[in-house]
């Protein structure tokens, strides 16, 4: 099976190469039969990659530890669920997984578009085949998942057990986090291929951009899901009490998400007003390049140190491909810029187009700021030498991101409510007086209640503003529909959303984002933290909670040995819960893992991490704990659900000849 997988990979590479050639000549000679054969070879590559991934999965399930990758990422004592999913637990398997997702997406998009946009198919297929060619050669030469484990003398080793997967990664959140991220990263390759096809052929009509919008929404959605799963995992599993640390790996998935968000907005301006065409092309290209970069960053270890980059041969290869791709695609964009001229000009400063323009500007600068912060430590290491490291930490990101996101949120309230082209003072008054009033009241109320952090006060006020604007949109729409059809509130509301899925789905996504921001401001601006060593029966108070240490308990659990510390929790004097935090000791791992206890309410999260324990301390058992009170965190997760719901609603929208704004 291992040999089959390896040869499957080589064959897939050959097929992809043939696909590139066939597509090239199909375009050149305008030949339908060659285009057909390029498409067939694309499907063929997909099938071969599927065979490969099945082979690797087979090796995992049968515990074939002769395979280096299987040996390095699984062990026989792991639950089968984690063995199966260990496939994407490392670089080599992830690359294969990437390629496999790409096969599925390209097959689906091929069947979607080959009838509708046949003239773009050769270039589209060709671009995808280039991507396949890159990933297959990458795997064959530098990151081969089918490589045998060899002893020093070159014979194949066959150990009894594998090294196991890092227990930190043995968590459902971490199992679905990488695939969701990859669905996002890989999903952007379809808009990219469509865009390249349009650029290469010079046929920059409307069809391709509409197709790209759908795929971008799809990828954007999974990226958001992946990012949230990662945040959730970090919160429950890492035990430091937060969910977002501006870690380079987090940043590299956040950056394409920002640019994709920008695209999803500016594409509306192109559809409605035929403006910003080259800007949209730029956004698609940037998003895909950032996705490739994200894949590379998350898997190569380059971000921890430039040193690890030069150790593996895949690093330079990956980076040269990204560089070549960017150079080629952007030169092409410049070459075609004549055909991408706007057909309209901006009519006024206060209209939806300009709000979207500024929103794009802000999102892109946010992306740029994150990029600089992520890449700068690396650059300084390259330029100034190994030991002259610089770190750019949370303070930088928070300081830059807070004002930028305030700006974005203001626009989020203003933009969708404004009419296209031009807004009259009367319209402005009608739309914004009430929300502005609510925002001012919110701010003064918070100040009166004793809140003294200007950024937080401003943030909450802006969120209130956005929220009221959106609610008013719903109210106005429902009222109009009630008047028109004479139906009751509920039916009117439902038909309103049903008739304008894209617009109102979008508003629901906005509400989700507002909820997320609400939680983020609360938990970033007002966390409480305390640490202590408690004897049995000793109390620790944090906010309205009082924590009492009850007892320790030690027993085996799953594939680990767990020491649990139990605590009773009192809320304003009343007992509300008994919680436990654990230290887990894994036989395959040197250091124990912490399982935190979290008690979530809409108001705040009580977060308890057992840091150390002593069963035979003076005066009985002791437990050393880190306790945090994180306000409003639950709103982040609730917001993600709302965002998911909103995206579904807006994805249900079908493009008919004309599009509802």
């Amino acid at each position, binding site marked *: 099976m291992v040999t089959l997988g390896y040869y499957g990979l080589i064959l897939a590479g050959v097929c992809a190469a043939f696909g590139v050639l066939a597509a090239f000549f199909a375009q050149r000679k305008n030949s339908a039969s060659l285009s057909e054969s390029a498409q067939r070879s694309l499907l063929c590559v997909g099938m071969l990659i599927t065979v490969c991934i099945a082979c690797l999965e087979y090796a995992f399930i049968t515990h074939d530890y002769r395979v280096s990758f299987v040996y*390095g990422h699984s062990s026989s004592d792991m639950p089968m669920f984690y063995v199966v999913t260990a496939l994407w637990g490392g670089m080599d398997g992830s690359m294969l997984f990437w390629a496999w997702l790409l096969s599925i997406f390209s097959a689906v998009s091929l069947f979607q578009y080959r009838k509708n946009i046949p003239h773009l198919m050769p270039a589209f297929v060709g671009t995808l085949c280039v991507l396949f060619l890159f990933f297959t050669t990458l795997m064959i030469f530098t990151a081969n998942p089918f490589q045998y484990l060899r002893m020093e003398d070159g014979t194949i080793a066959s150990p009894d057990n594998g090294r196991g997967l890092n227990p930190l990664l043995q968590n459902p959140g971490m199992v679905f986090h990488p695939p969701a991220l990859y669905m996002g990263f890989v999903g952007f390759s379809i808009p990219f291929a469509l865009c390249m096809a349009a650029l290469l052929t010079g046929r920059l009509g409307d069809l391709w951009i509409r197709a790209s919008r759908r795929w971008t929404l799809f990828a954007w959605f999974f990226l958001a899901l992946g990012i949230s799963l990662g945040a959730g995992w970090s919160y429950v599993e890492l035990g430091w009490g937060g969910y977002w640390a501006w870690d380079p790996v987090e940043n590299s998935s956040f950056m394409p998400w920002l640019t994709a968000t920008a695209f999803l907005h500016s594409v509306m301006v192109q559809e409605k007003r035929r403006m910003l065409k080259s800007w949209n092309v730029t956004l698609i290209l940037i998003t895909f390049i950032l996705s490739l970069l994200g894949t590379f960053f998350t898997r190569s270890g380059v971000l921890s140190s430039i040193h690890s980059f030069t150790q593996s041969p895949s690093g330079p290869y990956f980076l040269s491909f990204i560089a070549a791709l960017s150079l080629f695609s952007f030169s092409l964009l410049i070459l075609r810029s004549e055909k991408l001229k706007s057909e309209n000009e901006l009519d006024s400063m206060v209209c939806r187009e300009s709000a979207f323009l500024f929103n794009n500007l802000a999102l892109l600068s946010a992306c740029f700021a994150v990029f600089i912060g992520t890449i700068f430590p690396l650059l300084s290491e390259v330029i100034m030498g190994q030991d002259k*490291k610089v770190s750019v930490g949370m303070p930088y990101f928070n300081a830059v991101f807070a004002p930028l996101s305030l700006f974005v949120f203001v626009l989020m309230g203003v933009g969708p409510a404004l009419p296209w082209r031009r807004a009259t003072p009367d319209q402005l008054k009608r739309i914004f007086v009430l929300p502005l009033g609510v925002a001012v009241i919110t701010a003064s109320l918070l100040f009166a209640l004793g809140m003294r952090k200007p950024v937080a006060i401003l943030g909450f006020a802006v969120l209130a503003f956005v929220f009221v604007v959106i609610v008013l949109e719903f109210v106005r729409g429902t009222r109009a529909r009630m008047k028109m059809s004479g139906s009751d509130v509920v039916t009117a509301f439902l038909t309103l959303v049903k008739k304008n899925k894209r617009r109102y789905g979008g508003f629901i996504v906005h509400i989700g984002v507002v909820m997320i921001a609400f939680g983020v401001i609360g938990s970033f601006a007002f966390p409480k933290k305390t640490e202590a060593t408690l004897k049995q029966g000793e109390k620790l108070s944090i906010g309205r909670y009082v924590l009492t240490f009850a007892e320790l308990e030690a027993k085996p659990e799953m594939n680990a040995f767990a020491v649990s510390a139990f605590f009773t929790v009192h809320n304003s004097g009343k007992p509300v819960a008994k919680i436990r935090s654990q230290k887990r000791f894994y036989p395959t791992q040197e250091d124990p893992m912490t399982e935190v206890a979290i008690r979530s309410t809409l108001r705040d999260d009580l977060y308890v991490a057992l*840091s150390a324990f002593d069963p035979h301390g003076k005066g009985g058992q002791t437990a050393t704990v880190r306790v945090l009170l994180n306000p409003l965190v639950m709103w982040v997760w609730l917001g993600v659900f709302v965002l998911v719901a909103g995206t579904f609603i807006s994805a249900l929208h079908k493009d008919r000849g004309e599009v509802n704004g």
Partner: protein
Amino acid sequence: MKKPKIKVYVAVSLIVGAIVYLVYGNFQDTMVYFYTPQEIHEKNDSIRHQSLRVGGLVKVQSLRQDKGKLNSTFVITDGGYDVRVAYKGLLPDLFKEGKGAIVEGKLAGDQTFYATNVMVKHSEEYKPVPLKKKGGPPEHAQ
């Protein structure tokens, strides 16, 4: 038609300017330099009371903690030079003598580095207990 265009250009350049200022200004304020214990000794006066990071190994048998484990002192070493570190708060779980650690804080006049943050170097790649069984592969077989 000309007028709004100029306004937009002005607005765009104002925003871009503000953002560049924001990024640049915060870079200056929040960038933290990384030093080795040797450099701390060489630059001693010039970097005192400045926010910085020191990385190295936690010297074996240098860790002293009070009973509640909330106050610790230890020594970070690069083999040749030592830096004495004081830290208030719980040390991270993976903190161990003989292992790598990075501390962030300020060097005070008494030659003690007062850390506000202690980080343990831990890589994404997971390093388990080496196999000791006979017939097992050598540790770096790949």
